[in-house]
């Protein structure tokens, strides 16, 4: 039985490789889409804010921003700063898109802040660069919070002392305030390498999305044989229908595994993605292919022709894919629960858990869910197919 199935498997694989559409679905399209999408979402490392600085004030508080805050960010590589003499120059540069944003410290800024009269930092942003705009505003707001904090210290001390503190004493307090460690600070609880970065998420999402198209070829192959009459000829030989199914399923399985493995490796080498610990990834890939096979066999059992099967399977793959968040992660609300009824969602969830944990065993819950998907759909699918052919 196994030998006959292997022969069918080998013949199918050769046939599929000759027909280039499987190569498109299994390798080319997922990689292309991952590449395009990943270009659209900048990662932390390659994000840089190009911004202009206009210091119309020239005094110490403004310098605290231009030479303190901004200079530190330039050293960190987050900001690429250009100094402009006047607002018009910076405005033109933002308008032309040479810089994404500009900070303007108006004349009299330092005096206003020191006197407790407020003061204003103005931010010019190019709305075509939404993220840069947000970051530029965030940086200005950070300095605003810092200035307000220091003013509050001085004002509170002055009020509490009821006039007993001299001007020079208040200045000393202001200096203490500058040096004061913040009472409440935030710390990063999750290291960047403990998570799937956007490119890896996309690569894995696209891979599992197109996996469901790739395994389809095994099932449509069976229907094609029936349409072309080659199935009857196969059955005329001393081969059971089960053997034919086994051969087809093995073909789809091999294609699925190869496609996923190639995509995992190709996205890692070409696009700098990382799916996580290889053992965990391998387990998830096998489980993912099982779920795809089961679901697609079930769906295929409703079709009479290969074309119908292909179309039905595309529908199911699209719906599951969207619900599972292969194009963009689903939010945490009620919509997020949708991902639990999608094998795609479980696959991505498994990868997320894997990267966040030290051990490959983190993928086991997702693996179990995926295998369950496969079995729950495969059994009725196989029964239906058997009845159809009988």
């Amino acid at each position, binding site marked *: 039985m196994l030998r006959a199935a292997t022969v069918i498997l080998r013949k199918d694989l050769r046939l599929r490789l000759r027909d280039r559409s499987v190569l498109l679905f299994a390798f080319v*399209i997922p990689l292309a889409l991952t590449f395009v999408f990943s270009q659209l979402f900048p990662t932390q490392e390659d994000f840089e804010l190009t911004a202009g600085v206009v210091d119309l004030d020239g005094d110490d508080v403004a310098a605290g921003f231009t030479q303190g805050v901004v200079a530190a960010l330039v050293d960190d590589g987050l900001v690429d700063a250009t100094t402009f003499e006047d607002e018009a120059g910076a405005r033109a540069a933002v308008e032309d898109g040479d810089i994404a944003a500009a900070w303007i410290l108006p004349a009299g800024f330092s005096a206003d802040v020191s006197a407790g009269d*407020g003061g204003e930092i103005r931010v010019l942003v190019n709305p075509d660069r939404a993220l840069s705009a947000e970051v530029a505003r965030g940086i200005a707001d950070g300095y605003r919070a810092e200035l307000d904090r220091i003013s509050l210290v001085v004002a509170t001390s002055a009020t509490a002392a009821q006039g007993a503190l001299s001007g020079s004493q208040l200045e000393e307090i202001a200096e203490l305030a500058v040096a004061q460690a913040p009472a409440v600070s935030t710390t990063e*609880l999750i290291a960047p390498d403990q998570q799937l970065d956007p490119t890896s998420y996309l690569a894995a999402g696209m891979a599992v999305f197109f996996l469901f198209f790739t395994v389809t070829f095994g099932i449509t192959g069976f229907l094609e044989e029936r349409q072309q009459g080659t199935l009857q000829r196969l059955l005329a030989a001393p081969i059971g229908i089960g053997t034919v199914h086994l051969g087809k399923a093995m073909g789809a399985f091999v294609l699925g595994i190869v496609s996923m493995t190639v995509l995992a490796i190709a996205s890692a080498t070409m696009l700098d993605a990382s799916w996580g610990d290889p053992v965990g990834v391998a387990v998830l890939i096998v489980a993912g292919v099982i779920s795809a096979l089961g679901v697609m066999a079930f769906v295929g059992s409703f079709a009479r022709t290969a074309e119908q099967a292909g179309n039905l399977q595309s529908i199911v793959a699209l719906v599951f894919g969207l619900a599972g968040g292969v194009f963009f992660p689903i939010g945490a609300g009620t919509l997020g629960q949708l991902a639990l009824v999608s094998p795609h969602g479980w696959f991505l969830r498994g990868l997320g858990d894997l990267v966040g944990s030290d051990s490959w065993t983190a993928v086991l819950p997702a693996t179990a869910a995926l295998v369950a998907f496969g079995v729950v759909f495969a059994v009725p699918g196989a029964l239906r197919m058997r009845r159809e052919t009988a």
Partner: protein
Amino acid sequence: MMGALRTVVQISRVELLRFLRERSNVFFVFVLPLALVVFIGLQFGGGMGTQLGAVAADDDAAASELVDRLDTAEGIEVVPIDDEDELRSLVSRGNLSGGVLIPDGYEDALRSGATFEIGFLGRPDATAQSLRTVVDAVVADQAAITGAASLAADATDQSVADLIDLAAQVREGMPGVTVSTEAVGGDELAQEFSALGQFDLGASSQLFLFVFLTSLASSAALIQTRQFGVATRMLSTPTRLPVILAGLAGGRFVVALFQALYIIVVTALGFGVDWGDPLATSVLVLLFCLVSTGAAMVLGSVFRNDSQASGAGVGLGLVLAVLGGSMIPLELFPAGMLVVARFTPHAWANTAMAEIVRRDGGIADVVMELTVLAGFAVVLLGVATFLLRRALTR
């Protein structure tokens, strides 16, 4: 002449019928576009806010206040989460853009002037980075009162707890530094997005995605026309080749137009989507349908079997749609990708649609985009005619 026209219409009609007879096409044309419009509308419609998870004790007033402040910060929507483990997995799975973990005892720490640490969890992307700056600023604002009270207490020999309320009062009366943002150049994105209905954004960009995708899907039927010998049999009749070619193109065009009209009418009636100036939108949609027809005809003549064509069709349809700003708005593209986007018809159509819908533009405002689309259509239809003529007559 009239006879030729009648033949063209007849061939188009048959092509449309064949397309609609395939039941799964009905799903792709009728159900999927609306499902996606609703899905994307629900997901991004709520102000495009970044979701930030927050774990905080209910009975901690300071923690609740911090959560409220974060929620009112621009562009952030706070999602309450029960415990740290859940928060960690939601962030690491990408369901949330970031999260804050406020340990117990926050209020006490703020009251006593003790130092305190709040946990932040962020995705390894640039959004989380800007999220962190916002969270830091909000936290610093809240902690400023405690910081001020403790320094003032040192300076005046009073207790921190006594001065907390005083510091809060002082802050109420302080004018404070302000940060103002002004949009310069480009499109005034923030205002435009807020002016859009919940479904507008999804609907107009999806329109072009689906018109193009559906057209490319209809190239499979063109291949069958060739494979089944329908085309050669038509050639053996006195019908001239240009008429047959026009009929086959007409079939694709009708499918594309049908798809476009369906999406426009249903979203306008069902979700109240605004499609702008009728004349400008009609011309734009007609031109884009011609472009899609050309692309479908090219695919239908290049490929030999329909599974290859549908594979390439889905792939091309999705890649061009993403590149052309039909899944992520062009406004969010980095500069380099904007250049690439200009090579897709989708980008031109989306730009024109934005002009028409968001800025109430008329046909005169989108002449350039329409001209480029017409150029796409002429080139694609020309190439398709050449290829198809060769495929049918050799």
